[in-house]
């Protein structure tokens, strides 16, 4: 912060450093703490266990984090826009059930993917529409849809898991292309698409604007209601995608799956520097956050830490990380 101040006084003398003007370096600076935490975690695990730094283990970590990654991407967009989406966990279950049903009915793979995605979009549209047009709190509205959609997924299956007997569909969860797990390919695809939407379109800027200051966005002619609706649609679609991938990995659509998934997704976003007040956040940061949680889970299993204690550790890590972030931010505002 100090060097920024110097430049304010003598703007002509020195070219401003990359840390101040280059968007990538600014991103790096903002997520430095999370990156260091991730690297530190990996180093510690590599030293303390001989099972962590093994190709099979690393690939299984990647496979495991994919589901959370999809959801967290969607949640990040919603948080940036100043909202929150608690319904994602239920959408994961319902989308999985629908995808398996479609697969068992012998529909082509593309249809098995598109129909659940449509379902996610509809739920997202409903969330966004109700929130933006009634100004009810997003927390309450999406909490209600969470319960409703959970009900729907139980109704669709009669409470029983639906086994998938479609080989092509199942392959999506466990197969690989060129040695890369298919879910990872999907994550990379989703990242690229969302990255372009959020950073290279007017819509993306309008999302950041709406979350940063809704009133100012309205005064600037942004249709903030429509922006909110579209962001919730993104979140719904991403959750549905997570549901499809998860169902393929489990060879079944389970109506009870996904309970509490919104917790991990929100935690990952926040670890990755997304502001709970809206307007601030990056998908790259969220990716780092997802990896921290994933590596932490994996590491604690490898170290054979009691699974009840794992919750305690995870909670403390998240609280600590967010507090460090807060301290950093407060330091920079104080000057």
């Amino acid at each position, binding site marked *: 912060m100090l060097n*920024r101040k110097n430049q*304010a006084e003598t703007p002509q003398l020195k070219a401003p450093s990359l840390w*101040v003007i280059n968007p990538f370096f600014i991103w790096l600076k903002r997520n430095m703490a999370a990156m260091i935490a991730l690297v530190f975690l990996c180093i510690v695990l590599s030293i303390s266990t001989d099972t962590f730094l093994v190709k099979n283990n690393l690939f299984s970590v990647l496979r495991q984090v994919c589901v959370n990654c999809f959801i967290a991407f969607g949640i990040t967009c919603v948080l940036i826009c100043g909202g929150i989406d608690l319904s994602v966990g239920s959408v994961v279950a319902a989308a999985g059930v629908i995808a398996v049903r479609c697969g068992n009915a012998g529909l082509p793979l593309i249809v098995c993917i598109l129909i659940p995605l449509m379902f996610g979009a509809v739920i997202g549209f409903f969330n966004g529409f109700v929130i933006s047009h009634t100004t009810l709190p997003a927390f309450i509205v999406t909490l209600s849809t969470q319960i409703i959609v959970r009900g729907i997924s139980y109704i669709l299956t009669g409470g029983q898991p639906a086994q998938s007997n479609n080989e092509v569909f199942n392959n999506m969860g466990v197969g690989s292309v060129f040695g890369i797990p298919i879910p990872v390919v999907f994550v990379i695809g989703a990242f690229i698409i969302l990255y372009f939407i959020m950073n290279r379109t007017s819509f993306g*800027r309008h999302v950041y*604007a709406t979350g*940063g200051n809704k009133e100012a966005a309205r005064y*600037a002619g942004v*249709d903030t209601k429509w922006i909110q609706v579209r962001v919730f649609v993104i979140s719904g679609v991403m959750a549905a995608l997570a549901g499809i991938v998860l169902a393929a990995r489990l060879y079944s659509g389970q109506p009870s799956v996904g309970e509490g998934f919104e917790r991990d997704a929100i935690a990952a976003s926040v670890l990755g520097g997304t502001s709970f007040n809206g307007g601030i956040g990056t998908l790259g940061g969220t990716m780092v956050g997802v990896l921290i949680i994933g590596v932490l889970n994996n590491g604690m299993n490898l170290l054979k830490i009691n699974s009840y204690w794992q919750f305690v550790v995870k909670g403390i890590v998240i609280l600590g990380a967010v507090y460090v972030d807060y301290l950093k931010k407060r330091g920079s505002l*104080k000057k």
Partner: protein
Amino acid sequence: MSVEYVFEMKDITKAFGRNVVLDGVSISIRPGEVRALMGENGAGKSTLVKILGGIFSADSGTVFMDGQEAVIRNVDDARRYGVSFIHQEITNVPEMTIAENIFLGREPKNHFKMVDYRKMKQEAQIALDELGLMLDAGMLIRGLSVAQQQMIEIARAVNEGAKILILDEPTASLSHSETENLFAQIERLKNAGVAMIYISHRMEETFNVCDSVTVLRDGKFIGTRNTNETTENELISMMVGREFNNIYGNKRVVGGAVIMEVKNLTTKKVSNISFTLKKGEILGFSGLVGAGRTELALALFGIDSIQSGEVWMEGEKLSITKPRDAISAGIALVPEERKEQGLFLEHSIGTNLTFQVLSEFINHLRVDRKKETEIVDEFKQKLSIKMASTEQLAGELSGGNQQKIVISKWLAAKPKVLILDEPTRGIDVGAKAEIYKLMHTLAGEGVSIIMISSELPEIINNSSRIAIMREGCLAGVLDQQETEISQETIMSYAVGGEHSVC
């Protein structure tokens, strides 16, 4: 050390990091004296009074209270010495009663160590009655006007037995009559021997209310004058550090052909407004707070919905139902609340400034950073915006530079009609002069400007014509291309005097 002063602050120095905000400032005030504290934004006024109020602590320097050296470490200490702070933003708890607010943090207790509500209410009622407020101490704060809440804060200060009262821009959101009432109360407290520090950007008030003025500049003490021995121009020179004859100094522009015509515009808040706007003129909108000027602007910009009436632009009838409609017709609004309505404080200057022209450099999923920087640089130079880089956050800038960003944002979209709602509120004198100059340059380039302002000198010295609103309707439009309209004339329209048509 004599006890003729209520308090003395000597050689106060304070730095935030490497930024020295106060550099050896001394100030002393007698009982019953009202002292104005003036200076540009960033001169150190707020920091000085915050040190006195215990919100900040000084790096060095001493404070004497009634001639005794005093240590003020926190707000409680300050309160014990009789220092009370009336903040610019009201700090009452809306869901509690007036009495509870007055006694917040020092509730009277009965024998059982429980809050004595009866005593609390009685004493609060006495404090309210003393200030001549027609309010019941049992009422909730929610629903009271800003002026009433401010009076309640004063009541709290009096009840605490304040000897030194700090008023930080107390009239910023008050109407004319509310301001008068506040001044009456200040006079009363002054006679009761309460010393006051009065921070305000408004010259007129300073001369009306204060006995003396202390001017700070860049954290340094510049001088203290008695108000009856100084002039406005002398004070401004002291504040900006150079000779200053007239901050307006612009020749009034004369408009060309009619560009916009508003016919019988009616919304929930304003009724039957008709006026014309000429190309390249500055049309000033005056009137009391709450007269409907902002609401008229909001209607023209598509935020408040128009119930009936027409807006014509260059011979075409506009249908304005949302801000997009107004923007595409060439109307821009620089809103009243800069931080809440005009800016994304946590986003970069670049993001803010280019917000209306995204399509010029974001195309086919490509962001042309060079073009974006060019746009920012163009306005940085044109409006002499002081900033470190395009990526600096808007929230880190001073009020004047923030306002320039908001104006630039709209100028980038090349508007035909620019509505400025209180464009210089809370901005220091230097930046004010720059904004006036910019307005005249724009008008010279053919942009038509509607300027809403509560400062009469600002209206009179800048406008080609002056429209005056009263209680939601247009009381009259005065042409001042030949003769200057006096403040009295405008006020008589604004309060519904003989000329007023409504």
